[in-house]
């Protein structure tokens, strides 16, 4: 079965759906059996707002091009189901897809925070990995876990390496849906000054767009992992690490200043360094993640948990063993995954926590 992702363009408001993970070579809307079955029932879809991805209708068709119908379809309507178009022409029949629970899709979709202000030449642009974290946090199992775990506490939610801020701003903006209450505190850390500034803005926009639902964004700071945070305070830690295996870790350019003044023009070297920090993970892509895992017992509150993203090359099964070796109470569970390559999940999010026994 092919996996799909829904997008909506921020300006033209058109929606489209793309095959994010084909179930086999050449598989897609025209070839995969999944989509021939008109009774195909899909989980409530999350709609990602985008600005950088071109709208197939406005950008591609309008400029005389055409898009691949096997991998992309416009979404004609989302109501009690989702109707995909069969092609570029508006009078194409398309077909209906039922949505589980028969609920109105529009009401239940959690919108992605606006990140149109983020300078993507210096800050990691939200991609499948960021979206997988959003899916994880808004999934029924994780909502239930988080709501049961922090009934008597105002949880402190910290994201490391916020980049554009889309993930932590999503958690903050939809506090009532995810945590069942607005009384949550959120904050972000990044090594990149541009990312930290962008995140503050993303969080603010997310709060403005979700009055009555959002938590409290405390602020962003620059730092290495969680070093400036007091021990045993963090209740929910979110980390989309630099996970791409690289022969070496990014080297800091000699004339690099951490906090460039507004009139300082960053050079190409500086921009590449900042972007490399967001993906280069060294050996097995695990050099940074391993440092964080080691520190978990000292940073998570007794009921604290962490959501960490892994790719297949990170050997997440071995990471799970290392986490479980932190002590008999430590647990690691695959909370969400996306796509399979050679029988292994391409990306997955592990939820890590301490099992505290009955007196919880």
């Amino acid at each position, binding site marked *: 079965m092919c996996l799909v992702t829904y997008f909506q363009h921020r300006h033209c408001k058109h929606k489209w759906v793309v095959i994010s993970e084909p179930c086999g070579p050449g598989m897609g809307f025209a070839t995969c059996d999944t989509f021939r079955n008109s009774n195909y029932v899909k989980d409530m879809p999350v709609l990602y707002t985008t600005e950088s991805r071109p709208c197939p209708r406005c950008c591609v068709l309008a400029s005389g091009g055409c898009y691949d119908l096997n991998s992309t379809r416009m979404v004609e309507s989302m109501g009690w189901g989702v109707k995909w178009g069969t092609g570029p022409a508006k009078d194409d029949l398309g077909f209906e897809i039922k949505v589980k629970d028969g609920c109105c899709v529009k009401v239940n979709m959690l919108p992605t925070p606006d990140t149109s202000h983020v300078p993507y030449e210096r800050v990691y642009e939200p991609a499948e990995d960021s979206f997988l974290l959003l899916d994880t946090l808004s999934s029924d199992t994780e909502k239930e876990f988080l709501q049961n775990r922090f009934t008597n*506490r*105002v949880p*402190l939610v910290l994201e490391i390496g916020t980049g554009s801020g889309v993930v932590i701003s999503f958690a903050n903006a939809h506090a009532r849906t995810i945590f069942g*209450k*607005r*009384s949550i*505190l959120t*904050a972000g*850390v990044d*090594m990149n*000054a541009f990312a*930290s*500034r962008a995140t*503050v803005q993303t969080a603010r926009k997310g709060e403005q767009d979700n009055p009555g639902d959002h938590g*409290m964004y*405390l*602020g*962003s*700071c*620059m*730092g*290495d992992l969680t*070093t*400036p*945070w*007091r*021990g045993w*305070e963090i209740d929910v830690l979110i980390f989309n690490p630099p996970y791409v295996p690289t022969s070496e870790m990014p080297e800091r350019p000699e004339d690099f200043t*951490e*906090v460039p003044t507004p009139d300082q023009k960053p050079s190409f070297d500086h921009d590449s360094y900042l972007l490399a920090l967001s993906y280069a993970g060294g050996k097995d892509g695990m050099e940074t993640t391993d440092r964080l895992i080691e520190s978990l017992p000292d940073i998570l509150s007794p009921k604290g948990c962490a959501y960490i993203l892994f790719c297949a090359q990170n050997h997440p099964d071995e990471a799970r063993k290392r986490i479980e070796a932190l002590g008999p109470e430590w647990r690691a569970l695959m909370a969400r995954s996306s796509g399979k390559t050679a029988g292994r999940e391409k990306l997955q999010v592990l939820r890590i926590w301490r099992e505290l026994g009955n007196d919880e």
Partner: protein
Amino acid sequence: MKVLTLNFLTCAVKACKSAPASHPLHPKDAELVQDELELNSDMIVNVLPRLDWTALRTTSSELGFPPLPDQPPTAEELEADDKKLKDLHHLLLETSISEGKLVCGNCGHEYAVKEGIANFLLPSHLV
């Protein structure tokens, strides 16, 4: 960064972590900004039990706010006293540090705050 954040932060230098003097960090030449925010009394009442009250008293007085009582108010006291609730809401959530420095009371290292963002990246000799 909101004033409440200072209750959760400490010096980034590893050797300072266990030293009581490293918490809270001391604001220096701090410029404050105020944002008017809707009061969420549930947030204030429920966040107090997780705070280091002594540290908050220090931060509050260093920022020039009226002195806080020796003991944190109880949930009942807050529910009965709207002003107490609003004062804490104002200090913890409506007030942010926009510019200045945060100083470790143990090693003396100063962390710059610019545009509301504190920089805790250490120079290589301190890592």
